């Protein structure tokens, strides 16, 4: 099990490339030229007394259609605060009805490559982490991150949502995407990044032999001549390079026995945060299974949103 001292002693070679800001401002500009074209379809099978659930699609980078589950409280007229729920690497995004009872809407994004967003981009799992690694423009995560950014656009386009009260959360890949999206979209007012993936790629790919990071090690072994170019591409997508740009309150949750996302690498992202930040350390816990994490996430977000009590 990693100790807090291990976390503090860890150093990463990750630094932002000189054109990091230009690359992402260019991507955001490219996104802004694409009409959102949202389509919202009621899902009576998933709706209940607390939540109207909708199957949503919108257009993202490259004009690709992205799906999401959108849960809106049945009670009250709004505008409602909203949570952008960002997905893990291989899991399908959940239908989040649990916040509706407290008057909070949730958009659970199915980024490209997921089942309902895979018609035009489907590298598979394993596969996504190495898809398009040959260049920053073609790397799959440029689209994945754009899909999350567009989730903010979708929420801000909705009359039932309060555009000043948008929050973000997610675990594993969703944790990394929470950090990155919050850096790119200051409209996000607070976020919780659990067990964040996408941190310190050069070190993470060598510390364990578990997937998804091991996909990068496989790539480097298969294409040794491409190793340097791979690492150069990854600099543009490393959450550590996004962290200093986050202005909203942010939590990073770390399991000290995490066997998928090395705790040291997640801590490096936390350390790079310059705004209000909190660190939750979970000893004797592995990736995604800290017993107290879900309740803490609910409590903390409830406070940020301004709810009187946490969602049970």
């Amino acid at each position, binding site marked *: 099990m990693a100790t807090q001292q291990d976390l503090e002693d860890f150093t990463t070679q990750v630094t932002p490339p000189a054109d990091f800001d230009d690359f992402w401002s260019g991507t955001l500009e490219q996104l802004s030229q694409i009409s959102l074209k949202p389509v919202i379809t009621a899902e*009576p*099978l*998933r709706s*209940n007394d607390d939540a109207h659930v909708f199957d949503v699609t919108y257009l993202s980078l490259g004009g690709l259609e992205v799906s999401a589950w959108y849960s809106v409280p049945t009670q009250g007229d709004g505008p409602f605060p909203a949570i952008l729920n960002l997905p893990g690497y*291989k*899991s*399908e995004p*959940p*239908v989040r009805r649990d916040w509706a009872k407290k008057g909070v809407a949730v958009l659970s994004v199915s980024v490209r490559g997921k*089942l*309902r967003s895979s018609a035009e981009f489907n590298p*598979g*799992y*394993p596969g996504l982490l190495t898809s398009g690694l040959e260049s920053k423009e073609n790397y799959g995560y440029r689209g994945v991150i754009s899909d999350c950014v567009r989730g903010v656009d979708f929420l801000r386009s909705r009359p039932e949502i309060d555009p000043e009260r948008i929050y973000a959360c997610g675990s594993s890949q969703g944790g990394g995407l929470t950090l990155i999206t919050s850096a790119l979209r200051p409209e996000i007012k607070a976020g919780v990044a659990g067990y964040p993936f996408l941190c310190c790629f050069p070190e993470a790919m060598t510390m364990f*032999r*578990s*997937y998804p990071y091991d996909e990068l090690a*496989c*790539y480097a072994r*298969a294409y040794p001549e491409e190793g340097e170019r791979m690492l150069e591409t990854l600099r543009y997508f490393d959450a550590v390079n996004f962290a200093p740009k986050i202005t909203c309150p942010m939590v990073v949750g770390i*399991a000290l*026995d995490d066997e998928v996302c090395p705790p040291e690498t997640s801590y490096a992202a936390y350390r790079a945060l310059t705004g209000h930040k909190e660190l939750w350390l979970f000893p*004797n*816990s*592995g990736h995604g*299974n*800290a*017993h*107290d994490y*879900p309740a803490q996430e609910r409590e903390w977000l409830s406070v940020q949103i301004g709810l009187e009590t946490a969602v049970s």
Partner: protein
Amino acid sequence: MVVGSDWTGNGGLVTTSSDRFWQETEAALAEFPVDVRINRDDFYSQPDWDVFQMRYTSADGFRLCAWLSVPKGRGPFPAIVRMPDYGSVHDIVYTPLREQAVVMNPTYRGQRNSDQVFQAQYPGLLTEGIAAPESYVMRRVFADILRGIDALSVQAEAQLQNIALIGSGLGGALALAGAARRRSVHAVAANTPIALGNPISLMPGLGYPLAELNDYLRLYPTRREAVVQNTEELDVLKIAEKITVPVLLSVGINDTNSCPLAFGEELAAKIPDCDLRVYHGAAEGGGHEHAQIQTSWLANKLGIG
């Protein structure tokens, strides 16, 4: 090569609807040869183990995919079959024991790489075709898993010793079913096996995936009887007494998604050789503490480590 059941429970006698279901499942499997094709995956193979993609045929002629890893060196090796949970992706092999054991991660129909004919949705699969037994996909999911064990038994890349089945959620139930139906299995480690088919699965207030059943009944209240009838044979309680191998079972006292505590305790009471671990404070059983216990338990049962 045709591989069928090597375990007929009551000496082949059909005495209950559960017996009939399993006999029909075995008959459906017997209609198609396993037809295992196996290819080394050069990209994902490691210095210490080779990774293969297996393909084989299940009931209705469905071609299924599995990841297989084989340690470098001379066998035979013990084998661990990690049953798939409820989700579209089943991992490429990962376990700290993969340097000493063959590891197979089989998929069921509709999961990625086994979705040429039918693509499962999440949520959605748990009620896909549930109005009639012949269309209810989950009944065939259990067949697919038996066929995965058959495919492992006949593949030629690795000589096998003892076989252990592991899994969580749906994978936990599939592991128990596999042990009840295949004598080649020597041990099972099941975490929070899904209570699908048990009356407790229809309780209000459950979380996903079991909540899919209540979603369905809210929209189609007149189909309640059909839901009960078409799922009840998948209740692993009905075959628990036929599991003769050691079972390590984990449950959580607050589990409302997969294996409510009462179901887990009843299951443990029916399995003849069951080591039940109940975790307090856990929304679902297992977690990190149990993962370590399970690894040691498996190593012991398989004679490695």
